């Protein structure tokens, strides 16, 4: 199938079922002994969801805890796979599910830039080009050559965010991490996201901070109990959402 030029993410009839074990058999003995006991309860996290996100859109996913927002995001990144249905993404994709995943505490900030960016699939040359802007953005200065374990949690987050935001992906998936660092740095992150938005990057954000969503996103999708409750203009969806959950 030829990729539609304007599409960034295409989700068709996706259902995701988690198996919940009360007592998960992870050894052979348990598997053999309990093979006929149905201890798994199936929980439907996402129920037959279809949605399309075009290139350049900035989309927010909102909903109460446990509604399936983060699962949807994880499905888009290909960390987990749908039970049914298909998900296609077009273009380079970066996800910020958790900042600093894969940081190695004993390595310096600089080394971790290489390591972390390589997890995002960058080549050495590409990282060399971005190195300075990552360091500048993080505002870590000389600290960049100290081991990451000596960083404060705020500095740690700043470095992680700087790497992820400078990867230059076409699609950026962000999970509730807009509250990074101090006020000054948060503003800066916001500016950067605005800039990416203006550069026609596709951004999908999961957040509970309705104010920042209002500023950043044109489109909002409200997910409730594994289904799309409402999808459309941020202001309209937000009003409905506030009526029910506010």
């Amino acid at each position, binding site marked *: 199938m030829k990729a539609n030029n304007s599409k960034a993410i295409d989700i068709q009839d996706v259902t995701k079922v988690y198996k919940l074990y009360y007592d998960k058999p992870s050894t052979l003995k348990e598997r053999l002994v309990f093979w006929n006991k149905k201890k798994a309860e199936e929980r439907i996290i996402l129920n037959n969801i279809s949605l399309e996100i075009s290139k350049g859109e900035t989309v927010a996913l909102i909903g109460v805890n446990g509604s399936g927002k983060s699962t949807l995001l994880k499905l888009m990144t290909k960390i987990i796979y749908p039970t049914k249905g298909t998900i296609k993404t077009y273009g380079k994709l970066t996800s910020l599910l958790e900042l600093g995943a894969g940081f190695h505490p004993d390595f310096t900030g600089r080394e971790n830039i290489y390591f972390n960016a390589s997890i995002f*699939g960058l*080549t050495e040359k590409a990282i060399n080009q971005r190195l300075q802007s990552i360091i500048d953005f993080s505002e870590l200065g000389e600290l960049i050559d100290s081991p990451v374990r000596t960083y404060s949690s705020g500095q740690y987050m700043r470095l992680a965010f700087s790497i992820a935001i400078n990867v230059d992906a076409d699609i950026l998936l962000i999970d509730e991490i807009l509250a990074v660092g101090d006020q000054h740095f948060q503003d800066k992150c916001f500016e950067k996201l605005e800039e990416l938005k203006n550069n026609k990057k596709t951004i999908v954000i999961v957040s509970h901070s309705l104010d920042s969503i209002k500023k950043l996103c044109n489109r909002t999708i409200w997910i409730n109990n594994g289904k799309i409750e409402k999808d459309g203009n941020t202001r309209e969806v937000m009003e409905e959402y506030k009526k029910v959950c506010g």
Partner: protein
Amino acid sequence: MKNLINNLYNYRLLLKSNVKKDIRGKYKASFLGILWSFINPLLTALIYAIVFPFILKNTEQHYVTFVIIGILPWTYFVNTIIQGTTCILSNAGIIKKVYFPREILPISINISGLINFLISCIIIFIFLIFSGIGFSKYILFLPLIILVQFLFQLGIILITSSIEIYVRDAEYIISFLINMVFYATPIIYSANMFENTKIAWLIRLNPMSSIINSYRNILFYQTIPELKSLLITLFGCIFLLLIGFIIFNRLQRGFAEEV
């Protein structure tokens, strides 16, 4: 398949930095550092060299060199299989958070083991020189034999590492099997000791036998390796590797949930 190769190529830096991390992280807090990859097999070989001449009636001449040529590739094999089997599990943190081709993890374990092995080959060369055995032109076969071993190990750990996620017994079963295979591999004894006995077929069936025998042929006996047996092993390993990739690909879909 083409997709996979493409994907791995794009993530080559991750592979490189993972290998670096494996090698540097391994001996980080120890005094002797990387020297341990020499000392350990060397000491093991010495123990065998002291004990076995008493047990076996007629050991080879230059028995220490003989054993070391067997022990070092075997150490590479054991380390790779043991670490490789748990490599997905021990990286649970990033598996759950970031997408990257999961094959990177077992491949980088195998590569960092290989680098360790290549460094420790210096010991083999030192022993060859000082025992007066020296080198022959057949040493040119060395890369081929190492390749066979590399593919064999990769095939195994692709399968075991992905099964380990679903059945945690895998690592215990594997470490027992390795102990067993040790005795079915001509490391401390020479392969022809069991010729014409009832278990000769068992030793011949073991791919590691063919690999260790080939190392020994080119380095110790300085003859051409048994090409037929080596080629059969090579094709077997390629077949195993393909099956490994298929199984891994099937099972990797559940890694983030099961790990």
